[in-house]
């Protein structure tokens, strides 16, 4: 077998972790406050977006299934947290981002994006409104070094203070149908009163946190922002002890990626890049024109009027050979698109993929296949998402 440089056997064409460049790190990866907890739990740690993160603890398939059927806990401390505080915080975000953040109610969260002047996506974000004059912007780890300075620059004409607080925070996600059972005994919050995409100041395991009902797995769940980060091991251990009887397991980035793919959620670096507008990605709904000027507005107005140049489709393989990012999609033998994310689906038991195809392509006729290293594997075009939880 061939060997990757990190001791994990990897093929020349396939990165071990999707979504980030595989180039050698310029410096030692950063570690989260939970590193020792992960090592004690036997995690396989890999570099991801400049951080040393758990890839999996034991079987990533078992971790995936635990999140679908019980609960899983993730360390997401690599993600970026940027605070905006001041009388014009709302106006600054309306100008800096594509969404209407001034319309966001206090205690609520919203999925949005930041683009460049050309409308290209710089990152997808969750923004929490913590107060009338206070927001927390959560960015992908790999993009935080771009997003934080961009926000500071775009906010410079407004009466608002922008601070990158990423290093102060640890972020723990607990996801899955049993999340409420695990968390309820350890928090002062009335969890039934916290709606999806809401976040408030609460305590968990006696520590003050921002407790949000959000996630990236397609399941119900919570994200717990812990500050200072040094308190994270205490919160993690308390949740893990409480959760054992509910089937809670620690889960790594490998399970996180297959969970979000089944849920049809885009990943920056794969479905979203600076070369694509939100409209290209089929997520034009996050762009709000019923507000004043904002960065990228002119180009995005054009993009909104274009016939959509491409669209994201779901593929389900008939065989067992996994589909991977970068592979070509064919209809009746002719190339019609490219896979952006692909993996074996633990829930469906077969490989799945998301792929971009031309917007006017008729996907209802013809035989679809994927070129997997020179051999065509038969696939069916299916509705996204691949998985939807029963509510």
């Amino acid at each position, binding site marked *: 077998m061939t060997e990757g440089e990190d001791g994990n*056997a990897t093929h020349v064409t396939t990165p071990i972790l999707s979504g980030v460049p595989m180039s050698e790190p310029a410096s030692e990866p950063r570690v989260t406050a939970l590193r020792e907890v992960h090592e004690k739990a036997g995690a396989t740690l890999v570099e991801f977006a400049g951080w040393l993160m758990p890839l999996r603890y034991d079987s990533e398939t078992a971790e995936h299934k635990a999140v679908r059927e019980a609960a899983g806990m993730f360390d997401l401390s690599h993600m970026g947290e940027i605070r905006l505080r001041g009388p014009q915080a709302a106006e600054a975000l309306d100008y800096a981002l594509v969404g209407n953040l001034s319309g966001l109610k206090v205690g609520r969260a919203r999925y949005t994006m930041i683009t460049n002047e050309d409308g290209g996506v710089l990152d997808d974000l969750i923004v929490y409104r913590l107060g009338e004059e206070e927001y927390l912007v959560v960015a992908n780890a790999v993009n935080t070094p771009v997003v934080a300075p961009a926000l500071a620059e775009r906010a410079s004409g407004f009466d608002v203070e922008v601070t990158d607080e990423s290093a102060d925070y640890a972020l723990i996600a607990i996801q899955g149908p049993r999340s409420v059972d695990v968390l309820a005994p350890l928090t002062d919050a009335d969890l039934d009163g916290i709606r999806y995409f809401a976040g408030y100041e609460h305590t968990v395991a006696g520590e003050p946190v921002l407790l949000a009902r959000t996630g990236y797995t397609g399941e119900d769940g919570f994200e717990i922002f812990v500050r200072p980060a040094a308190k994270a091991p205490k919160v993690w251990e308390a949740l893990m002890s409480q959760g054992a009887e509910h089937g809670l397991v620690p889960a790594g980035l490998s399970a996180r990626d297959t969970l979000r793919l089944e849920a049809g959620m885009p990943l920056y670096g794969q479905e979203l890049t600076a070369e694509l507008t939100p409209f290209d990605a089929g997520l034009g709904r996050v762009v709000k024109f019923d507000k004043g000027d904002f960065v990228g507005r002119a180009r995005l107005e054009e993009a909104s009027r274009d016939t959509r140049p491409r669209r994201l489709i779901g593929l389900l393989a008939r065989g067992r050979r996994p589909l991977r990012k970068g592979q070509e999609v064919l209809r009746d033998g002719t190339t019609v698109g490219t896979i952006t994310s692909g993996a074996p689906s633990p829930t469906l038991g077969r490989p799945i993929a998301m792929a971009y195809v031309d917007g006017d392509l008729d996907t209802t006729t013809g035989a679809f296949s994927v070129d997997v290293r020179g051999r065509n594997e038969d696939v069916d075009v299916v509705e996204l998402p691949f998985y939807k939880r029963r509510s």
Partner: protein
Amino acid sequence: MSVPTELGYTDKHEWVSVQDGVTTVGITSFAAESLGDIVYVEVPEVGSEVTAGEPCGEVESTKSVSDIYSPVSGEVFEVNEALEGEPETINSDPYGAGWLFRVRTSEEPSDLLSAEEYTKLTEGED
């Protein structure tokens, strides 16, 4: 991680067992653990010729694709067909039910590592 002493090993993480001119090939426990959950295996076809040091199949896990290199030259006369439906057997029993293919060989495979040498190699990589 286990490394049975009665087997020979390659630096590409295959194990080899030779008995009566028949060489059985699999991947090591170290390789299986490094890859994660194995979800797909492609072994050479029965009747095909494999060449020592050349790729002859693939192992895919959730996050990786790896070539299998044949440790020996010869004709493949048996493959582990059960792996097609249950590739995870390689994770659970890499030296037993997780074997990959058998080759009829005229010569003993050369340059195999002993269990001790292979263990040293993996410790250097771990």
